[in-house]
């Protein structure tokens, strides 16, 4: 149900832009207004989401440990998985953000021979996720060649490395292929594993279909139904220099690609994709486990009126004596 809904939604989006650009005058809307609005929504949405999280109180350490805590000197501590120092935390965050350490721990649970529980080694999700995210980063960085003039050296270097293999006379960007392969895997995984399919919502499928649409239009435009890239760069350079012009010769595929990217960017801060910013603010990952070494005082503490035992006894001593209760001080 969720899948059909998401698929139809993305098809409708494609139809909107495909029919829209045929209307004279609407090309400017899809090539200039929509991308600007999407960028603004993306930036403002991300900032607002992160500031909202920043306001949430995190007074104490939340040690979800996966390794030995630092303790007595003769017990070997796990400095990266259960760090007690800032450097260790930076290491743990780097592992998490760059290599998806938590996902690497993924296991699959199955019953064997009746009721014997077994945990399986399951690295495919980790591998697919790693492949997808790194490909996406490379693809995004390579696109800087459309947004800079002259193109910075590192973009050229990336494109040269990425385009090591040839497709006809053109460089074949490996990251483009691995991007599509990884998104397809992440999609098929949701469809083919019954438990996963059961818990999947439209919010899980929509980003996947958008990414599939963006990736496939990109590949089609580069290798099969080419568009005039000089015109494309005229448009993008016009956008980034705030002097937008819509040149002739922007193909239909390009408009679909741009519109889907804009939709994804605008949808980003309000969807699960916002984990891009959220990962930095995971309290279980970004706080050192030093609760036993340092005392953490809740900064939001306010003075609470207390009634100590001494004061209690002072108040009720006579009554306690009468009732035969033991008291600490006589009179």
């Amino acid at each position, binding site marked *: 149900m969720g899948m059909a809904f998401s698929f139809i939604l993305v098809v409708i989006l494609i139809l909107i832009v495909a029919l829209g650009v045929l209307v004279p005058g609407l090309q400017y809307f899809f090539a200039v207004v929509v991308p600007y609005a999407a960028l603004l929504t993306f930036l403002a949405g991300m900032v607002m989401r992160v500031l909202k999280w920043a306001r949430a109180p995190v007074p104490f350490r939340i040690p979800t440990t996966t390794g030995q805590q630092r303790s007595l000197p003769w017990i070997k501590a796990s400095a990266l998985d259960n760090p007690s120092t800032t450097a260790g935390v930076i290491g743990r965050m780097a592992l998490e953000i760059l290599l998806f350490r938590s996902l690497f721990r993924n296991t699959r649970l199955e019953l064997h021979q009746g009721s014997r529980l077994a945990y399986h080694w399951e690295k495919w999700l980790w591998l697919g996720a790693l492949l997808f995210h790194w490909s996406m980063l490379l693809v995004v960085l390579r696109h800087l060649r459309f947004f800079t003039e002259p193109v910075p050296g590192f973009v050229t270097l990336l494109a040269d490395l990425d385009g090591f293999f040839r497709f006809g006379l053109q460089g074949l960007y490996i990251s483009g292929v691995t991007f599509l392969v990884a998104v397809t895997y992440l999609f098929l995984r949701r469809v083919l594993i019954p438990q996963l399919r059961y818990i999947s919502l439209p919010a899980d499928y929509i980003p996947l279909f958008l990414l599939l649409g963006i990736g496939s239009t990109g590949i089609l435009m580069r290798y099969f139904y080419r568009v*005039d890239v000089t015109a494309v760069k*005229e448009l993008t350079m016009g956008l980034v220099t705030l002097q937008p012009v819509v040149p002739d010769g922007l193909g239909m595929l390009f408009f679909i690609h741009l519109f889907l990217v804009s939709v994804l960017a605008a949808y980003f801060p309000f969807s699960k994709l916002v984990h891009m910013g959220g990962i930095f603010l995971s309290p279980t990952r970004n706080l050192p486990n030093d609760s036993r070494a340092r005392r953490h005082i809740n900064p939001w503490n306010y003075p609470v009126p207390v009634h100590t035992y001494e004061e209690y006894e002072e108040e009720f001593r006579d009554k306690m004596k009468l009732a035969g209760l033991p008291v600490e001080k006589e009179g």
Partner: protein
Amino acid sequence: MRDSRYIITGLIVFVVLLTFPLWSNAGKAASPPQPNLDTPAIQNLEQKQCVEATEYMRADHMQLLEDWRNQVVREGKRIYVAANGKEYEMSLENSCFECHSSKTQFCDQCHNYLDVEPDCWTCHLEPKEP
């Protein structure tokens, strides 16, 4: 908000990095490439028309050149029949450079703009600049 200075620093870094194309190009005028078609051979043409239509050549010239290469090198065919029925010799150096005789004024204009480095020149000789 005890960690706000780290979070806000991170946010600023994020926004600055993301808007890199905007501030690095700020104030510059976006000047599209101007490939120069003013060569003697083109001036002498009665009908100023490449082997195929301009829009096709702009988007698909790499495909055409690849087809030409495959036809000549692998099939041994040397005559290209264009969509309008005219015949051309499939040769980069003898046909293309006949008109587009300046690499810096023609090829490089867009290729540099888009940071594309075709490997034509690993086999072919660059035309002598007029």
